[in-house]
Each structure stands twice: as structure tokens, then as C-alpha cells.
């Protein structure tokens, strides 16, 4: 209680002192500084109070240094100095701030503290920084006060608010003040107003404070706190929802990448390619190889390895795709069930081949610097990697649309999709179109693998974990229409992530699968179904 009262008195003095004498002269500082490095602990306490009373940047600096063990007496000339670390270094004169050479800790004698002094210092420094620090420091001090809610800091805070110029910092200070008032036993009206102020800060910290106040305050205050808390909860729920939406969007983008190649092969050729997931996996491993090559031979390129990996992955997987089409799938046209089995077999072979070459464990693919980290967007945390993948998925989608709609190859592909015998009789080499289509679909899968290597483990099983989801997307969206794939991927991605917090990850997935199975009953050919005679074989 005594220390509490003294704290208030001190803070009051401090506040008054700040108003009267903004900065103390070097002479004024000399005596208390000397006391700080002395041996008498009660003299130290008085010196600390004196310094705090004087205020000003030098006093604040000295007190801070004292708290951090960086305040020394130089043995050679008894000068009180501040060092950058507790073991010496380049010194500055504590009283004037002038440079004072450098020294190691042997030539210096540290100012010792006991626990009582440490406590005293901690409170005072917070208050001092409120007025003397840089804006960022002042804001941090206000934040610290908001968290501590130490009533002793209130007068200093009030004084600091009065002279604060920076609007943002003042808002932070007022928030801290409201928090202190709210949790103190100030008059009800003030506390109610404080509750409203705290309510404007819509994060978990404020929510916790309001809820704790709502528990044990007079009814009117508790009511106000509850109202504010409810508003914060609503805001947080909205934020959660938006965050899930973002996760859903990014999952949708991933699904779109994985499924869009499948949509091409399935839609155009009616071929169920169960080895599609393995193409994705090969793309991811290509990224790994490219990155390793960059690491060993051209470290400067490491940050841009992905741009090399993109065409490389496309070429590798497209070549593998063309090879599979020529060697196996070509012989199975018109027998979709057998194609399914054969491609499943191929997927096993590819998986095992990768396992024997690269080993069964996960391979490390690092994120380039421009893809790591996150950006804060009105309280939403958007990770760069996911943001880029969304952008990338949209790019790939648009590119594919352009290829299908605006190129000669795309025209031939669509002709073959719609009426194969007619296209053939018009001189389109359907076999070649088939091969190129399969290569294109596989190549897009490879590109998807590059993207997935950034957010998922690169292991031989990478493809398997996406194949069922990809098929669900294609089946849900309907074949032969890229827009259907887009709609399917986004719907499934967002529905998955929105269900996850409600039902849990696994149950959410099961619900989605069951819903798709039910949906297929209603619309057996998907959302965007092809219509016309070609549908019924």
C-alpha cells in the first residue's frame, strides 16, 4: 500500500515536473547519477526518484541503462557512463550524452540494483518513455500499460496524453488509460465510458479485459463491458469467417491447379488419368531438383529458382504425359474403365520409381524470400505463399482458357471433343491432338506441382493426397468446361474450410464427400454439364 501511494506521488511529481522543467541541465543530473553508481541503496532510490522528477531524454536514457545493467562508473576518472551492452563497448557520458571513448567491463564498475529498486525502475521507465521516446517507443509504452493496467501509471499517462501530438500514439494512450480506468474503482460513469473506448479496440486482449470486468463490477459497468465484449466477439467472429474464407480461397486455388489439367484430359479425351496426381508429384520433384541445382551452381538464382522450375516442370511432365499416351493410353481409347486401371498401375510405377530415386522421406523445398512471411490486412493474416498461389492459379486458368479459345490447337481440341469422327474427316489429326492434349494436361499438372511444393510436403505420396479431391472437383464441376472446374474447385475449397471450424477437419471432409455423392445423384454430369447428343454414348 505504501509503495502504491508513493508510486502515485512519484508519478504526480513526475507529471508536474515534466510540465515545469522539460529538461534538466547536465549539472543537475550529475549528483543523482553519482549516487546511482554509489553503494548506498536508499540514496540510489532517492536518486532514481530525482531523475524521474527531472525528466528529459538524458534522465530517461540513464534510468533505462540502469535497469538494463548498462550504467557504469569508469574506474579511471569516476565518470558515470552508459555502454551499449552490459559488458562495455563504446561509452557515452550519462550526463551530457557526449562520446566518452570505449572500455571493457574490467575498467568499469556496474551500478548494482536490488529487487525493490528494479520494481521502482520498471514503473518509472514506462512513464518516462511515454513522453520522451520516439513515437514507436511511446506507442509500445502505451501498449505495455494497456497490458499491465497498473493504476500507478494513470497520472503519468494522463499527463502524457495532454502533450501528445501524434494522433495514433494518443489513441493508443487513451486506450491504455481507458483500460486502467475500467479495471480500477473509478466512478461508474467514467468506467462505462472507458468500456466503450476499450470496446473500440477489437482484439482478444480487449475482449479478455472486458469479460473479466463484466464478471465482478457494479451492474451498470458490467452491462457496458458486456455490450462492448459482445461487439468485439462479433467483430472477431467476422474476422474468423473472413480468414476461413481466405483459407478456402487458397485451398480452392490449389484444387483448381491440381484439377484443371485433369479436366482437360478427362473432358477432351474421356480418359480417366489416375496417374494425374503423380504428374503433380513429378512437378514438385522437378522444383526440388532445380532448386538443388541452383543452390550448388548458381546461388544468386536461388530466389528465382521457381521461375526456372515452372517451364522445367511443364516440359518434364508434358514429356512423361506424351510418353504415357503413346505407349499405353492410346491402346485403350474407348475403354474408359480399363484406362482407369492402367493409369492406376502407371501411378504405382511412377510413385515407386520416385521413391527409389529420391527416397521415401519428404524433400525440403524452400520458399523464396518473396514468398515467405505474411501481410496483415485489416486484422487478417494473409500469407504470401498462399496469396501467390491464388494469383498463380488464376494466371494458369486464364492462360489455359486462352489456349483453348484463341489458338489453332485449342480449336482442334474442341472440335475433337465435340465430334471426333467429324473432326477427323475435316483433316484434324485426332491422334496427334490426343497426344498433345494429354501432354498439355500433364504439363499443367506439373506446374501445379511447382506451386504445391511451396505449401505441401514433397514426398512420393504427394499426388495421391490430391487425386480424389481433384476428381471430385472435375465430377462436381462437370467435364468439358473449364468454368465448371473453376466453380467446382472454389466451391469445394471454400465449403471445406468453412465446415472445418464447425465440424472438424475430418468430419468436414466426410460431409463434403457425402454432399458431392448426393449432388451427383441430382446432376449426374456435374454443375456445368455438356448438353447434346454427345452426352449419351
Amino acid at each position, binding site marked *: 500500500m505504501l509503495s502504491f501511494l508513493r508510486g502515485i506521488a512519484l508519478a504526480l511529481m513526475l507529471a508536474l515536473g515534466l510540465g515545469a522543467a522539460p529538461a534538466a541541465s547536465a549539472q543537475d543530473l550529475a549528483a543523482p547519477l553519482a549516487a546511482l553508481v554509489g553503494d548506498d541503496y536508499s540514496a540510489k532510490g532517492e536518486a532514481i526518484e530525482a531523475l524521474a522528477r527531472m525528466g528529459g531524454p538524458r534522465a530517461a536514457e540513464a534510468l533505462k541503462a540502469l535497469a538494463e545493467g548498462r550504467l557504469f562508473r569508469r574506474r579511471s576518472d569516476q565518470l558515470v557512463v552508459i555502454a551499449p551492452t552490459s559488458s562495455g563497448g563504446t561509452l557515452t557520458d550519462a550526463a551530457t550524452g557526449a562520446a566518452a571513448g570505449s572500455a571493457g567491463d574490467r575498467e568499469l564498475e556496474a551500478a548494482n540494483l536490488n529487487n525493490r529498486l528494479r520494481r521502482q525502475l520498471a514503473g518509472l521507465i514506462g512513464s518516462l518513455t511515454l513522453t520522451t521516446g520516439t513515437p514507436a517507443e511511446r506507442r509500445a509504452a502505451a501498449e505495455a500499460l494497456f497490458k499491465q493496467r497498473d493504476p500507478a501509471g494513470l497520472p503519468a499517462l494522463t499527463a502524457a496524453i495532454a502533450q501528445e501530438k501524434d494522433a495514433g500514439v494518443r489513441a493508443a494512450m487513451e486506450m491504455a488509460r481507458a483500460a486502467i480506468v475500467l479495471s480500477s474503482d473509478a466512478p461508474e460513469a467514467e468506467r462505462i465510458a472507458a468500456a466503450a473506448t476499450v470496446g473500440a479496440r477489437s482484439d482478444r486482449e480487449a475482449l479478455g479485459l472486458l469479460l473479466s470486468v463484466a464478471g465482478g463490477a457494479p451492474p451498470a459497468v458490467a452491462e457496458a463491458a458486456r455490450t462492448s465484449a459482445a461487439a468485439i466477439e462479433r467483430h472477431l467472429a467476422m474476422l474468423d469467417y473472413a480468414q476461413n474464407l481466405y483459407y478456402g480461397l487458397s485451398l480452392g486455388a490449389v484444387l483448381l491447379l491440381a484439377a484443371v489439367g485433369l479436366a482437360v484430359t*478427362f*473432358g477432351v*479425351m*474421356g480418359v*480417366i488419368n489416375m496417374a494425374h496426381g503423380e504428374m503433380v508429384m513429378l512437378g514438385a520433384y522437378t522444383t526440388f531438383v532445380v532448386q538443388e541445382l541452383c543452390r550448388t551452381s548458381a546461388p544468386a538464382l536461388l530466389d528465382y529458382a521457381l521461375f526456372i522450375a515452372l517451364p522445367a516442370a511443364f516440359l518434364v511432365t508434358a514429356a512423361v504425359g506424351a510418353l504415357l499416351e503413346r505407349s*499405353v493410353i*492410346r*491402346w*485403350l*481409347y*474407348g*475403354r*474408359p*474403365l*480399363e*484406362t*482407369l*486401371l*492402367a493409369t*492406376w*498401375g*502407371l*501411378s*504405382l*510405377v511412377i*510413385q*515407386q*520409381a520416385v*521413391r*527409389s530415386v529420391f527416397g521415401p522421406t519428404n524433400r525440403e523445398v524452400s520458399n523464396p524470400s518473396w514468398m515467405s512471411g505474411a501481410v496483415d490486412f485489416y486484422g487478417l493474416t494473409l500469407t504470401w505463399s498462399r496469396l501467390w498461389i491464388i494469383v498463380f492459379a488464376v494466371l494458369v486458368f486464364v492462360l489455359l482458357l486462352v489456349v483453348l479459345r484463341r489458338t489453332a490447337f485449342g480449336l482442334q481440341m474442341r472440335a475433337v471433343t465435340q*465430334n*471426333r*469422327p467429324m473432326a*477427323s474427316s475435316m483433316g484434324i489429326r*485426332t*491422334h496427334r491432338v*490426343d497426344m498433345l492434349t494429354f501432354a498439355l494436361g500433364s504439363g499443367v499438372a506439373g506446374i501445379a506441382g511447382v506451386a504445391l511444393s511451396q505449401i505441401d510436403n514433397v514426398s512420393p505420396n504427394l499426388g495421391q493426397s490430391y487425386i*480424389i479431391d481433384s*476428381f*471430385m472437383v472435375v*465430377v462436381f464441376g462437370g*467435364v*468439358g468446361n473449364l468454368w465448371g472446374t473453376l466453380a467446382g474447385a472454389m466451391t469445394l475449397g471454400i465449403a471445406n474450410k468453412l465446415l472445418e471450424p464447425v465440424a472438424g477437419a*475430418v*468430419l468436414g*471432409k*466426410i460431409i463434403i*464427400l*457425402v454432399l*458431392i*455423392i448426393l449432388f*451427383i*445423384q441430382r446432376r*449426374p*454430369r456435374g454443375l456445368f454439364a*455438356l448438353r447434346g447428343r*454427345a*452426352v*449419351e*454414348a
Partner: protein
Amino acid sequence: MLPPRFFTARLIAGWPGLLFLLALAAAAILVPLSNLVLPPSSPWHVPTHLVVLIGKWLCYALLAIALDLVWGYCGILSLGHGAFFALGGYAMGMYLMRQIGTRGVYGHPVLPDFMVFLNWKELPWYWYGFDQFWFAAIMVVAVPGALAFVFGWFAFRSRVTGVYLSIITQALTFALMLAFFRNDMGFGGNNGLTDFREILGFGVREQGTRAALFAITCAALAAGFLIARWIVTSRFGLVLVAIRDAESRTRFLGYRVDRYKLFVFVVSAMMAGVAGALYVPQVGIINPGEYAPTNSIEAVIWVAVGGRGTLVGAALGAFVVNAFKTWMTGAMPEVWLFALGALFVLVTLFLPKGILGTIRARRRQPAAQPQAATSPAPAPATAEQGP
């Protein structure tokens, strides 16, 4: 009383069926006898681990026949038959769990160990009745049958066919796998059901029980084969084949295609359930891994290897592939997946009718029109393809 011709001409019909049934009968009698009566030193003694292994293959063979019934005769390629197999297995596993009684690690009289471990206070409602064998035996066929009925009713009525059906059956078994991996489903989660003690009062690990289970599995396989033969040789079976070969045309002829499909799908699922139920006491464990889509698709390759639409071939395929697998995973495990993958590719490319189908086609060739009549060449790529 059915006339003898019913058996000779319709059910057995030819040497493969006859040989198959004779081999099963011989195995059902000789293997348990040799295991139980002959001393281990005798060269004719069948060791217990081999009895269990072959018993497992017999269960797979029954699953293969069930799959052949829908795929080979009705053109429904189910990639989710492992789900029915596992459901039957879980029904049996639940009975076996309840039989453990107070002999479990925690010694709880009613709750299985994993429930005590998860701090459950009482038995979930769906575990009631499984302390009775007759109830479990009904559930072994009822649960897969009911799931197949509901699923098939939706799927066939809205004419989900071909690869679409394959994909959603795969999604079905995938969903079930995820569900059964969850601890709060009440089926033992990741670990599944295991540590069984008794079946009908006989210790599951005793030699005699294993031999008896072996003989029963032989009998079940024979019964499954005869039921399947009976279905496919009836008028009903002819409609099934018509649906396989030209579904729309059959529908236009006035047959309710969806009902035919639904019936045969449910029967097949029940058969798979029985196979699973016989599998569990022999193997001693059932866990959610049995629902993995890989298992179901492996069952498809057994049928493809043996020859679909032949029944005996399906059983033969299950035997051959699994014997191959057992040998290979022991001798050179890293090659097994290459071999399995190659098997998928080679069989579909070069042996589309499977072992038995190819032999059968060869034998018939001199009599009927060569090639074209018996083996329609793969449709050319220029043919119109349904997605």
C-alpha cells in the same frame, strides 16, 4: 427338389467350375486334416501360418467373385468394394470385441478396452446386440447390404454410370476410411479392433478353430460361387449382361435397368461383407486401413487378371495375385509396387480377358466365328466416347 441337370448344366457348367468346386472341397477336408492330424515333421503337414494365409486368400477370392458379379456381368466397376468387405469385417470384429469381456487389459465387463481408454462411460447404441453371434451374423450381411442399397438406389436411379460411378464408389470408401480413423466414431480409431479371444466359445488363436474357420471359408466361397452362378445363368443374369453390353438399349426394351443393377449390387455387397467377416477372425485384426481405396482397386486387378465375367477366374486371380504378392513382398519388397503397377498395365493392354477368359476364347475359336464373335476388338479411338 431341383433336377440334377440344374446343377450340372447351369451351376457348374464346364470343367473350370467343376475343378474349382472339387478343389475347394478337397482343400476344405485335406488342409485342416493335415494340419491337425499329421505331425509337424511329416512332409504333408500344412503349418498353421499357411492355413491362415490360404484362408486369407480364400476370403479375397470371395471378394473377387462378388466384384466379378457386378463388374464382369453388369459392367459396374466398383472401386469401393473394399468398403463392404471392411464393414462385414467390422461387424464381426465388434462381436469378437464383445466376447473379450473382462479379459481385456482394463477388465471392463461391457466396454471394449479402447472405450475405457478413451474414458467412455457406456456402450454406444450401435454396439448393442453385438454380444450375440446371431445378431452379428445378420449385421455382417445387413450393414453392407443396406449401404449398397442406399448408395445404389441413389446412383442407379439417377443413371450415374461408367467412370463417374467408379469415382464416387472410390470417394465412398475414402470417406468411410476417414470416418473410421476418427476415435469418436467408436470403432477403435486408428488401431481398429484387435486382441480377440473367442468366437462362439472357441479360442480364435487355437489350431482347431483356425482349421474350422478355414473349412468354413472354403464352404462360403463355394456357396458364393454357386449363388453367383445361379444369378448369372438365370434369365435375370441375361438381362444383367444385356445391361453391361448396351445399357440404353436394354432400358428401351422396357427393363427397369436400375432395379437389376441395384439387386446385383446389393447381393455383391453382402457377399463382400461375408468375406470380410471370415477374414477378421483369421487375421485377428480389422482397422480403417482396410477401407483404403488402394485395397479396393487391388481387388479389381485380381478380377482383371483372372478374367472378368468368369467367376472362377476372379477367384483364381485373387489367388494368383496374392500368392505373387506374398512371395514378392518377402523376396524383394522394393520391386513389388513396380510389379503390381506393371500388372495393371500389362493385363489391360495384353490380357484384357484375363487368364481364364483368354483360355476360354482359345477353346471356342474353332467352333464359332474366329475372333470377331468372341473378342470384340478394342473400340477404335475414333469412336464416340461418353465422358
